[in-house]
Structure formats: structure tokens, C-alpha cells
């Protein structure tokens, strides 16, 4: 036997035959168990056919995708951009037709937009751009709250502009914004009262800008509501919604980033600061 065995690769010789035979045997047994039996019967898909079980064994499953991170669908928090076209449409709102549309709103937001419920915002005196944007966000599903989505969907953009013009012109609601737009002086980071400190100085360590830079008093920004005189419980609920991510219609996440870092006590204090006296659980501007 040994004398014959001089060609390492000739299959007529015993050692190559043993070597290749065992190699083939090992490959077949390992393959059958690994890709047939194991993948088919040990994984929880009892209805796998042979081909699918081989794919399972190779790591190719039906949920295998290309080698990229899962990416959430591209989604804009709002459809509104403050272009001259948008502003022109809002400015052209017809308050008379708006009064007719506003009949739909009175049941909740009160006669003339002056809310009598703590959780529902007063609209009288609110900037028309703010109302228009929120209606648009409700219509597109970017802001979700109760019946507002359905209400907004029943309105055309022109209806929205009209009703916004109507509420903006109403009296006895939110205080009129003065012509003096310079933030109040004498308020600084050394302010002991946390609400006042946040409103007028913010908290640079947490990256929180002063609320008053956009929401008054003093500073106002297009599309951001002036908060003075608003319902305190409503403000507090909105802060909580931003913090928890249930309200997401703030562009660049500006409100979500701020609200996430506020403590519950701070949210409460801020709501009380801005809120109309008697509109929250704590009466009056207790921190003033």
C-alpha cells in the first residue's frame, strides 16, 4: 500500500482518498446540520422551506437590509415658512369672513376668543401669524390635539387667514403688544427667582435662551406667541408636551430642546409667571 502511494494528489492512492473523502464528509455533515437541520428546526420559523433555512443559516433573513443605519422618514415639523407670500396671505385675511368661521371656535375658545377654560388658550389678541401657523400644523398633522385636527382640516388656507385676522383684532383677551420692544432691564443671571431668571436671562449652562427673547415681555419673534396673559395651565401643559416629545411642531426642535431641560417646578413657575391671574392652579403671579 505504501509503495504505491507516491502521488500526493492521485485519488487512486489511499491517503489522498482518505483525506479528500473525510474532508468532503465533514463539509457535507456540517453543511446539512448547520444550514438544514439547525436553521430549519431550531429557529422559530417552523414553516421555513429548505432555501429559506439555508438563507437563515447564512445570516440572510427577510429583514436583512443594506448596511446602513435605519433612518427615520424625513419629516418637517411644520409646512409654514415665513415667506413674503405667506405673510401677504395672512395680512390679506378678511376679519368679517373670519367672524363667520370663528363661530366654530366659540364653544371651546370662548366668545370672541376669550377662553374660560384653563386648558384652552385665549385667542383674542393673539398675533395672526401664530394662529395661522398653528392651524396649518393641525391641518398637516404636525400638531395633534383632540378635535383641532378635524377642525383645521375643514378650513381652507384662506379661511385660516380670515379667522386669524378676526381673533387678532379682538379686545379683552391677551394684552396688546407695546411698541417698546427692548427687554426689561435690571434682570440678570443673579436674579434669585428662578422663573424671572429663565424668562429674562435664560440659563447658558443648559443652553436655554431667555424666554422673553421670543415670547415677551420685551422681545417678540414672528410665529412665536406672546405669552403674557395666556392661560397658565395651558402653558404648563404645552411645556410638558414639548418635553415629552408629544408636541413636535417647533422648527429646529427649539422648544423641545429647551423644555426637555426644565424641571417640573420650573415649568410650573414659568407658566405661573406668564399666566393670567387665576388661570392656573396657583393663583396670581406668585413670583413677582
Amino acid at each position, binding site marked *: *500500500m505504501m509503495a504505491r502511494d507516491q502521488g500526493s494528489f492521485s485519488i487512486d492512492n489511499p491517503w489522498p482518498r482518505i483525506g479528500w473523502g473525510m474532508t468532503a464528509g*465533514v463539509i457535507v455533515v456540517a453543511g446539512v446540520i*448547520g*444550514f438544514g437541520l439547525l436553521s430549519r428546526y431550531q429557529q422559530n420559523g417552523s414553516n421555513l422551506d429548505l432555501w429559506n433555512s439555508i438563507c437563515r443559516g447564512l445570516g440572510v433573513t427577510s429583514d*436583512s437590509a443594506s448596511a446602513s443605519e435605519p433612518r427615520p422618514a424625513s419629516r418637517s415639523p411644520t409646512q409654514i415658512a415665513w415667506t413674503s407670500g405667506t405673510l401677504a396671505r395672512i395680512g390679506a385675511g378678511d376679519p368679517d369672513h373670519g367672524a363667520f368661521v370663528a363661530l366654530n371656535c366659540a364653544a371651546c375658545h370662548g366668545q370672541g376668543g376669550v377662553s374660560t377654560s384653563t386648558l384652552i388658550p385665549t385667542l383674542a389678541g393673539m398675533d395672526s401669524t401664530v394662529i395661522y401657523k398653528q392651524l396649518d400644523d393641525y391641518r398637516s398633522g404636525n400638531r395633534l390635539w383632540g378635535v383641532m385636527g378635524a377642525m383645521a382640516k375643514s378650513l381652507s388656507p384662506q379661511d385660516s387667514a380670515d379667522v386669524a385676522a378676526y381673533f387678532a383684532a379682538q379686545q379683552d383677551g391677551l394684552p396688546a403688544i407695546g411698541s417698546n420692544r427692548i427687554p426689561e432691564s435690571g434682570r440678570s443671571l443673579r436674579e434669585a427667582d428662578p422663573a424671572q431668571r429663565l424668562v429674562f436671562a435664560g440659563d447658558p449652562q443648559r443652553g436655554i435662551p431667555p424666554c422673553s427673547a421670543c415670547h415677551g415681555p420685551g422681545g417678540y419673534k414672528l410665529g412665536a406667541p406672546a405669552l403674557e396673559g395666556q392661560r397658565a395651565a395651558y402653558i404648563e401643559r404645552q411645556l410638558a408636551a414639548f418635553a415629552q416629545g408629544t408636541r413636535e411642531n417647533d422648527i429646529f426642535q427649539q422648544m423641545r430642546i429647551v423644555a426637555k431641560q426644565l424641571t417640573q417646578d420650573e415649568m410650573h413657575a414659568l407658566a405661573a409667571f406668564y399666566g393670567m391671574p387665576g388661570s392656573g392652579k396657583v393663583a396670581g403671579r406668585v413670583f413677582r
Partner: protein
Amino acid sequence: MHNSSRLALYHCWVAFAVFLPAVALGAWQMLMRSPLPAPLDDPNAYYASVTLHGTAMAYVITTFFAMGFGYAVTATSLERPLRGVAAAWIGFFICLIGTVMAVLAILSGRASVLYTFYPPLLASSWYYFGAFLLVGGSMIWVVLMIYNMAAWKRDNPGRPVPLAMFAITATALLWAWAASGVIIELVGVLLPRALGLTTQIYAGLARTLFSVTLHAIVYFWLMPAYIAFYTLVPQAAGGRLYSDTMGRLTFIMFLVFSLPVGMHHLFADPEHGAGLKFVQSFLTFFVALPTLLTVFSICASLEIAGRVRGGRGLLGWILVLPWHEPMVLAVALSLVMLGFGGFGGLINMSYAMNSMIHNTSWVTAHFHLIFGGAVVIMYFAVAYEMWPRITGKPLRSKALARWQLWLWFWGMIIATVPWHITGLMGQPRRVAVFDYSDPFVAPMGPLVIISVVGGAILLLSAILLIVVLVRSQFGERHLEAPLRYALAVNPPRTVPASLNGFALWNAIVLVLMLFAYGYPIGQFFFLKSSVPAYEVTHTSAIAAGVR
């Protein structure tokens, strides 16, 4: 002194010079992770130390020892001078330079990668270049081993290659196959990133390539010990090798079965399918075959020696073996540790049971028993055998050498048994600091302290080793006894070509590697359906001067 002897001696000097500080680091690491107070109580130092300890033990000592042993075996078993001595010296210095580069990179604190090449851990390019030179330099040795065996076969047609030479060539081939993974990983993935040429690392690809090396490298470490089992132990015991063919089959099986199995290190990785992991788990079980064959052959050879020495009865031959010989004592201690470690290894390689102990101190215990215990104790015995033959100076003294071997054995047992238990309790490995006040961790405290005692005993043993070797080196020269290899009971006159060369077995390795790794590596290039690339964004590790 013969030129090949000087080569062997220099390689062993480097290996053992690195060995002692590496053991000291290991002992300190055990203290550091225990509840006991440790000097230099700094986690960063711990991770750098793990890197240094592992790099020294796994890459430097083993590579240098195998190379030195290979040169000695070539010259003595073929009974003619080594061919290509100049190339061998070039390889020695390339490896030495690589070692120095890697060690300096670690000491400068810019290569704390836990001695593995697993991204996203990333080291300074100096470390990777050093490792590349060390592995690349050893390829010169690989070529020389193959060249010397082929040249001898050409000059002695029809004669069987001596078993020792056949085995060391198998070792060289195994190392060439094994190193291909890490070389491709270094050149293709790690160095480009470390040099700042790329910003992303395909972590899955890099880990898969390293797994090609990771398990076969262990058998590269193991082979010199097995060569000693087959060719030196029966001679030292005063008997003969039970079977020459069994020896050849053992080394062939190591070459074939230790390669397509590395993915059992990646059982917890997401980038490979369960079927592929099972295939490699299945193949891993075949590695037990050559070890079981060896245990049988060695016990049979020792029994032959015992009966020749007049031992009677079922077990009487054990008592009359020359236990005063370090080689005989070492083989017994080695087999005990191989038994314990092998048992743990069966758990590691089992696809299902692996998840019980994956990345726990159980794994550390396993490879310390197999490599640090069973293999390294044979390195000691080989050194005790070779040193006097090479230098002509007798060992001073055999009693001290026996103490050293016993201490190493007990130190390793005391260190690793607690690790096995804490591993089952869930203690992760490669972690510097544990909160022993945590109720989950607290029961591990006493066990870890016991292992510290084992570490101290190991350090003592390592010091003794150096003492014995240095004392022998400075002794008088009055010994002329060349290294002799054990004859088989039936010395082979002719051997089938397949058992006298490696052509067939290399072809089989290629087929098995394609079966085991073709798809797992190919998927990264063709399907791209795998774990996402890691973007490694931390600051580039290159020195400002090099950039």
C-alpha cells in the same frame, strides 16, 4: 558554537527576557482587579498593562521561541547545518525592531487595545507597524523551514523526513496560514485608518479577518510543546515513541483542523449567520482529535519507557519513570493542565454553551491553562533540555528546575480555578475595577483574592526560571551531548508521500478555508448586508512629528 545554535540561543534569550516582566505585569493586574489594594491603582494603567502582557506573551515570546526552537530542530534533526542563516538573522532583527516599536507604543499609552486587533478599539500606527514587522519577520522563518525540509528531501530521495522536522514545518505552514488573517487586517483595514487614510472601519470585516488568525495562532503556540511531547519526552523518559505515523497524523490534523474554526470567537457577533457559526463550531470539535491521539501516544510511550525500566503491573510503570528529569515531570503536569483547560475549551467552542461564559473570566482561565500552563511549562522543559546542549553547560540545578515547574503548575491551578468559577458567576474579563460592595459582585471577591495568590506563585516561579537559566549560562562548559530525538518503536523506513509532505494537506486546508470563510468574508464585499461600518472618529493616533 554552531551558527544555528547561536540563532536558537538568541531567540530564546529574547523570549525569556520578555517573559519575566510580562509575568510581573500579569501578577499586578490580578492584584489590581481584586478587592486588595494595589500599587498604581489606575484603570488606564491596567488596560495598558493588559495590552503589554498579552502582546508579550501571545506574540513576542511565542514567535521568538517557536523560531529559535525551529532553527535548533532543523539543524539537529536533519543533522546538517541550517541553510539560509543570514536570512534567519535578518528575520530575527526585523522581529526585534517590530517588538520594540510595539512595546514603545504601548508604554507611551497610545495602544491600549487589549492586545487584540478588534476595532473599534484603535491603537497608534506604531503599534500596528510593530506587530506587522513582528509577524512579517517571522515569515522569513516560515520560508526557511519549508526550504530546509524541501532541500533535505531533494538530497535524500525516498527517505522519510525526521518527525521533528516534519512537525516544525507543519508549525511553520500553520503559522503562515494563520497569520494571513491578521496581515490582511493590518494592511487592509487597521493601518489605513491608523494613518488617517480612511475614516471608517468595517468592524465586522476586521473582526472576521482577525478570527482567521485568532484560533490557529493558539495551535502555533502549542506545536512546539507537542513536538517536545513526541520527540523529546520519550527520549528523556528512557523509552521510545509509540508510533511515528501517529505523530505525523497529529501534526497534519493540527494543520488541517486548527484553521477553519476561528469564528467560534465570534459567536456573540452580529455579522454572521447561525449556520456559519455552527459549521465552525462543528469543525472546532475535530481539533480535539489530534490532542486525544497525542495523549494516547504519549501515555503509551511513557508506559514503554516505564516497562523498559522494570515497572510491572497495571500502573507500576508510572512509579519507575525518571521523575527527576524536568522533561518527564513537565509532561505530566502539562497533561493535567491540558485536561482541565481542554474541558473548559469544549464549553467555549459549543455554540450554545458559549453564551453562558462568553467574554467572562472563564475564557481567561481556559487559555491560561492551555497556553500559560500546558504549553509554557513545556517551553520551560524544552529550554532546560536545549540550554545545556547548545551552550555545553549543564543545568544548575535540576532540583531548582523541578521546584520551578511545580510552582508554575500550582500557581496556574490556583489562579485559574477561581477564574472559572467567577466566570460562571458572570464576571467579565478585561475589566480593571469591580465594585465589590455590589451584592452581585461581592461573592466573587474571595475567589479573586485566591487567584491573586496563584499569581504571586507564578511570579516566583518565573523568577526561579530566570535564575536557573542565568546560573547555567555562567557555569562551566564541560558537556558534549547533542540534542537527540526519540526513536519510534518501529522507525519508519519508507513513508507514503502524503505523510512525508504537505501538498495534499495544504490543498485540503484551502478547500476547508473556502468553505468556512469564503462566504463570511465575501459577504462584506458582495452583499454588504451586515453590521454597519464603525466610524472611528477619535483623534488620530499618529505622532505629530510623523504626520
